[in-house]
C-alpha cells in the first residue's frame, strides 16, 4: 500500500487496468474473431471451416452487394443531413431557453428512449403503411388524395425512421456545445457591426462545430449499419447492408461472408470518419 501511495502512475494504471482488460476481452477479441472468420470457408450448418480463402472479400465487391453498400452510404448520409437540419435548430432553441426550462426540454427529448426501438418502429409502420396506414387512410377519407402516397417500403420510409430514431443523439452534443457558448461573444460580434445573421455564421456556428461533428458521427455510424429500420419500414424490398449482414448470420448461415461484409463496412466507416474529421478540421476547432 505504502508503495502504491508513493507512485501515482501505478495508481493510474491500476484504475485503467479494469476497463482495459474489459475492452480487450469483450471488444477486441470479438473483432479479431470477425477478422479471422472473414478469411475462412463457411461451415455446413453455420460456423466455419478452418481453410484460408479470399473469396468472401471478393464477393463483397460483387455488384449485387456493392450496390447495397453504396445505397446504405447514401441513406446514412441523407439521414445525417436531415437529422442535422432538424436537430440544430432544436438544439439552438433548447440552449436559448431560460435555464430553468432547459433540463425539462432535454428530458422530453429523451422520453422516446424509454420505449424499445423495435416497438417504436412498428408504431411508424401503422402510420406509413400504404393501404392501411393512418396517414394514407385519413388523407383519402378526407378526399385530399385519391391514390395512397408511397410512404412505405422505400428509401423515404427508411430515412424517416432513421431520422426519427437518431434525432436525440444529434441534438444532445450540439446542445452541449451551444449551451456553453458565452453569450458575451455574440454581444461582442454585434458590437463589432455584425448583423445577427453574421454573428451566427462567424461566431455561433464555428464554435458549435465540435457538437455538430460528434452528433453527425453518432447518427451516421448507426444509420449505416442499421437493420431494424430497413427491415420493418423498407418492407423487405428496400434493404441496407445491415440486413444482408444479419441475414448471413441468421438466415444463410454464411458466417465468413457476414464477417467479410462487416470488416469492409467497418473499414469504409473508418475512412468516411477520417475524411469527415479532416474536412471539419479546416473550420478550425478551438
Amino acid at each position, binding site marked *: 500500500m505504502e508503495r502504491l501511495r508513493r507512485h501515482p502512475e501505478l495508481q493510474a494504471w491500476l484504475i485503467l487496468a479494469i476497463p482495459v482488460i474489459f475492452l480487450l476481452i469483450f471488444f477486441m477479441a470479438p473483432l479479431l474473431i470477425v477478422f479471422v472468420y472473414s478469411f475462412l470457408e463457411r461451415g455446413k450448418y453455420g460456423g466455419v471451416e478452418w481453410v484460408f480463402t479470399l473469396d468472401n472479400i471478393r464477393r463483397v465487391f460483387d455488384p449485387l452487394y456493392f450496390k447495397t453498400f453504396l445505397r446504405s452510404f447514401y441513406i446514412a448520409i441523407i439521414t445525417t443531413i436531415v437529422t442535422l437540419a432538424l436537430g440544430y435548430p432544436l438544439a439552438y432553441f433548447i440552449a436559448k431557453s431560460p435555464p430553468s426550462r432547459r433540463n425539462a426540454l432535454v428530458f422530453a427529448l429523451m422520453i422516446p428512449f424509454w420505449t424499445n426501438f423495435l416497438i417504436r418502429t412498428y408504431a411508424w409502420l401503422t402510420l406509413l403503411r400504404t393501404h392501411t396506414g393512418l396517414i394514407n387512410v385519413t388523407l383519402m377519407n378526407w378526399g385530399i388524395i385519391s391514390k395512397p402516397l408511397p410512404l412505405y417500403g422505400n428509401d423515404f420510409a427508411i430515412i424517416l425512421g432513421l431520422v426519427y430514431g437518431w434525432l436525440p443523439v444529434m441534438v444532445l452534443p450540439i446542445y452541449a456545445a451551444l449551451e456553453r457558448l458565452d453569450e*458575451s461573444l455574440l*454581444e461582442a*460580434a*454585434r*458590437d*463589432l457591426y*455584425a448583423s445577427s445573421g453574421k454573428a451566427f455564421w*462567424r461566431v455561433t456556428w464555428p464554435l458549435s462545430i465540435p457538437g455538430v461533428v460528434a452528433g453527425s458521427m453518432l447518427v451516421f455510424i448507426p444509420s449505416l449499419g442499421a437493420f431494424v429500420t430497413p427491415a420493418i419500414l423498407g418492407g423487405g424490398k428496400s434493404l441496407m447492408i445491415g440486413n444482408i449482414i444479419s441475414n448471413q448470420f441468421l438466415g444463410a448461415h454464411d458466417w465468413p461472408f457476414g464477417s467479410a461484409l462487416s470488416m469492409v463496412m467497418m473499414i469504409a466507416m473508418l475512412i468516411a470518419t477520417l475524411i469527415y474529421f479532416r474536412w471539419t478540421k479546416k473550420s478550425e476547432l*478551438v
Partner: protein
Amino acid sequence: MTKTYAVELQDVVKQFGDVVAVNHVSLQIQDGEFFSLLGPSGCGKTTTLRMIAGFEMPTGGAIYIHGERQGYRPPNKRPVNTVFQNYALFPHMTVAENIAFGMEMQKIPKDEINRRVSEALDMVRLSNMASRKPKQLSGGQQQRIALARALVNRPKVLLLDEPLGALDLKLRKAMQIELKALQEEVGITFIYVTHDQEEALTMSDRIAVMNNGIVHQVGDPETIYEHPADRFVADFIGETNFIPVKIISLAPEIVVALGSGEQVVAGWAEEGLAVGDRAVLSIRPEKMDMLELNEVPKTPAHNTAYVKGKVTHLVYVGTDTRHTVTLGDGTEVVVRLQNMYIGEEPWELGEATIVTWNAAHARVLKE
C-alpha cells in the same frame, strides 16, 4: 441651439419585470471625456452602459449619441464599441482576426484592414502576437487585445465594462495609467464602468456615483471626494466618520449639536434639512487631528471644532496610524494621523484627547 454631447441620457429608465434597474437617469457626457459610472454591484451602472451599447433597450427615456437619438437601433448600427468585462475575445480566431472582425463587418478594404490591424497591435505593443489564439495570451495581453479590437474601429465613444476587474492588483494599477494615457492620446470619449472607487478617482475626468439605479452625484474626482452630495456618496467613496447630530441653526452659519451637547460649526448642509432635524456630520479621517487636553487654545478659533474623547483602539498601517476615538456620546470616530517622525510619542489606549477639525471639512448630511 443646445450643446451636443458625446452621449446624453434623458430620464432613462430600465425595468426588468418588477425590478427597476435604472431609475430616471439623466447624464451629459462631453466629447473627449473620461467618464466613469461608479457604484456597488447591482447599482445599475452596467445596465446603463449596456443601454448605450444597444444590448438592452430602455423602458423609458431617450439616449443620444453625438446628438442622434438611438431608439431601438441594434448594437451593430451604433457608433460605439465595447470592451467587455471578460474581454469576450473570439476563441476560434487569431488575435489579428479578432481585431479585423469589426472592420470586416463594415466591409473596409482588405489592405486597409491589414494596415489598421498592425497599427492597433503596435499601439498595444503586441505586434508579435498577431497569429496567436486568445487562449495563448495572459490576462493583461487579452485585455489589451480587447481594447485594440474596439479602438481599431475608431468609435465615437468607447464603452468599458470593468475592463481591469480580472487583473491582479499590480497589473491593474499599471493598466490604469496606460488606459488613461491611451484615452488622452486617441481623444475618444471613454465611458468606464467600475465598482473600484480608487480606479474611478485615478482615471476619470468626471464620475457619476450610482446606487439602486439612481445617480447620486456627478462631478470631478475632487468634488466627489471632498464634497460628497449625500451620505451614500460620502460612505461609498473613501472612508468617512458619521457623527449623529441635531441641527441648531442653518443661517447665518451651520451649527450642530453632538449627542454630548458639544456644539460645532459645519461648512455645508445638504438641502432639505431644517433646524431641529437629526442628521449626520461627515468628516474624513485624514481631515481630523488629535490634541492633548492642555493643547486647546485659550481662545479657540471659531471655525475649528474641538470635541472631547478617549482613545479606544489603535491600528498601525505603515504610512499612518488609525486612531479610534470614542466621543462623549459613545460615537466612535477614526482619526488617521500620518507617521511623519520615527520615535514620535504615540497616543495610548484609554488616554483622553481632543479631536479637532476645520469646519470647512465637516458636512451635514441627511441620516
